[in-house]
């Protein structure tokens, strides 16, 4: 036991001997959490920007613009066509909506009205804008339908006839306005697009960032455990250790426990930051949190032990662990919510421990759930631990 403590103490000294380690241990994770959490935070304006070019300049185009302005998912700006084109070219904006000159009631009804939506390819923002425009357009057309309906109804009244085209237009416009006010309170379809999480809970980027960055920055050094094994091999200290009355098992146990404990301290500090600075809901289920943190750290440490048997040098190990850690974090939903991924990808990434760690942590911090609901995730993580650890220990190289 004393020897295990000595190994842990030595590893901690070696690790934190360079001040740069603190940057990776706390500074970077906190900066990333804050930046990523805020960049898409619900408190700020997270509407997608879109430029609208109004070439029609009539009452209908105005109606359309008013509707777009009230959309909760896009934020529009009226500009001239030249400005719009250059903004799109320079990728300053992802969507430009052009309302053509011939956009009016008649063309809308006869379906000749063609709004032109220019967008950057493969862009999620552009996708959101497109959906918003479609929703607004269908509302406007239904308003126009209603107004047209009232005109037709008026004309069908026995003995009634509009004195002139102008009179008809006035009637139409007032019907349009009425229909619009009536529909103004109807639910906006785009809202569903926004909170697209499977569960009913609203997506919170700050919780996501806090959980996701915690996993990212804790997994990478734990996979880097492979590096400390390589370091001990390269420096000859492992060989020397094996000439002392200290067993291989004790060495492995001490090294792994030490790294897991350091990781747990790191996670607790990040959780405390989440609780006290970001006012997140980490503290609501302490037992569940403890189980999730420990099982995640164990899985990552076991992965590091396994990776260690595939590398020769410390620098190989470091490069590889950053790569594996980053890919796993990105694919596990630690940087973007998993729900943004295609369905098949969502299924495939279940082979990654990060996916389970992330879902378990979100259960706690985002969905406010407790111990019973994270047990499956924790179970899967411990399963990963077992598999990685067995491979790691069987293949372990002492030379």
């Amino acid at each position: 036991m004393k020897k295990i403590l000595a190994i842990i103490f030595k590893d901690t000294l070696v690790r934190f001997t360079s001040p740069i380690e603190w940057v990776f241990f706390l500074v970077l994770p906190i900066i990333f959490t804050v930046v990523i959490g805020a960049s898409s935070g619900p408190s700020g304006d997270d509407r997608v920007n879109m430029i609208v070019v109004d070439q029609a300049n009539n009452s209908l185009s105005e109606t359309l613009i008013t509707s777009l302005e009230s959309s909760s998912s896009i934020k529009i700006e009226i500009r001239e066509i030249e400005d719009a084109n250059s903004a799109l070219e320079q990728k300053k904006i992802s969507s430009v909506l052009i309302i053509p000159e011939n956009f009016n009631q008649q063309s809308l009804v006869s379906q000749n009205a063609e709004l032109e939506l220019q967008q950057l390819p493969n862009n999620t923002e552009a996708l959101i804008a497109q959906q918003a425009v479609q929703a607004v357009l269908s509302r406007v057309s239904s308003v126009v339908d209603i107004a047209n309906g009232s005109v037709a109804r008026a004309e069908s009244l026995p003995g009634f006839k509009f004195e002139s085209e102008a009179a008809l237009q006035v009637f139409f416009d007032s019907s349009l306005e009425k229909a619009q006010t009536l529909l103004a309170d109807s639910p906006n379809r785009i809202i569903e697009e926004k909170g697209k999480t499977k569960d009913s809970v609203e997506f919170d980027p700050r919780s996501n960032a806090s959980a996701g960055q915690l996993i990212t920055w804790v997994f990478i050094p734990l996979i880097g455990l492979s590096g400390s094994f390589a370091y001990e091999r390269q420096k000859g200290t492992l060989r020397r250790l094996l000439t002392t009355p200290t067993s291989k098992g004790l060495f492995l146990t001490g090294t792994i426990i030490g790294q897991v404990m350091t990781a747990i301290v790191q996670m607790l500090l990040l959780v405390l930051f989440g609780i006290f600075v970001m006012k997140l809901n980490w503290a609501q289920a302490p037992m569940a949190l403890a189980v999730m943190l420990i099982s995640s750290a164990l899985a990552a440490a076991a992965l590091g032990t396994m990776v260690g048997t595939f590398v020769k040098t410390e620098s190989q190990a470091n490069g590889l662990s950053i790569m594996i850690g980053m890919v796993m974090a990105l694919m596990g939903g630690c940087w973007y919510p998993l729900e943004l991924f295609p369905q098949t990808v969502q299924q495939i990434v279940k082979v990654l421990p990060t996916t389970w760690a992330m879902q378990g942590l979100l259960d706690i911090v985002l969905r406010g759930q407790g111990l019973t609901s994270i047990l499956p995730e924790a179970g899967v993580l411990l399963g990963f631990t077992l598999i990685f650890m067995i491979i790691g220990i069987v293949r372990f190289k002492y030379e």
Partner: protein
Amino acid sequence: MSAILEVHNLAKSYGNFDAVKGISFEIHEGEIFSLLGPNGAGKTTTISMLSTLYTPTSGEATICGYSITNDTMAVKKCIGVVPQDLALYEDLSARENLSFWGQMYGLSGKSLKIRIDEVLEQIGLLDKAKLKVKTYSGGMKRRVNIGVGLLHQPRLLFMDEPTVGIDPQSRRAILDSVKDLNKNGMTVLYTTHYMEEAEELSNRVGIIDHGDLIAIGSQEELTKSVGETDTLILHVGEETNPETLAEEVRKIKGVLKAEVTDHQVSIITPTAEELLAQVVTHANNLGIKIKSIDIREPNLEAVFLNLTGRALRD
């Protein structure tokens, strides 16, 4: 004198390559025993087996009465190991290193602290103990490397080429400390490819070459085996081919052996002084310039040359 280490037909192969080919020897309690041999002779492989790092391919050895294959823990408690390559945490200070390794040897608390101070004193680094090892000179690092092996006061100390690549001063200090340790009762197995070190330190020497222990005994016993011969060493100019000279010299009556290494010709003969004139004449005839001439009394170098036909170094 009782044997603290007994080796019987110990062998180690790496695949098809036999690095150590069934060697047998013993070391008595209280002596310094040197394994003398050139690069690649199998010294480190032997020490690795004896310190239980490698399992022997065949053969057996006992240390302090325990088998190196069946009783590894007991063996490890009895030995201290100073590996050929530095095995230290360079980011930690000497004191932190000693503290860690001391605990790995099972020391703790007050006795650990006392031993660390004693060892620091012994290796002359008490005043620099707090500095990181990576800031040390090569010689200082070597001394810490040795210090680690002394912490638990082992009965038997393995030192694998502890003076390689350091300045003469540090080397002197290390050789002296080995003698001191031995005076205080520690048995030492010392490997080296420097004949002078083996000569200065050891009670007995084993000469190892290509995995075979080709001679073993005290220095006197070994040199006697080459007879009353001297070694005549001719240092020749770099531009000349000493092999032609060696060929001529071999024809001279009374020359037992003549071997070439780099720019020197080593001649083993019982009558060095008398041959000198003839050898110089031959050299002149061949146009070979002789820069200097040494005549050496029988020594381990001569023993090695006699046994292998090669010089020990290079």
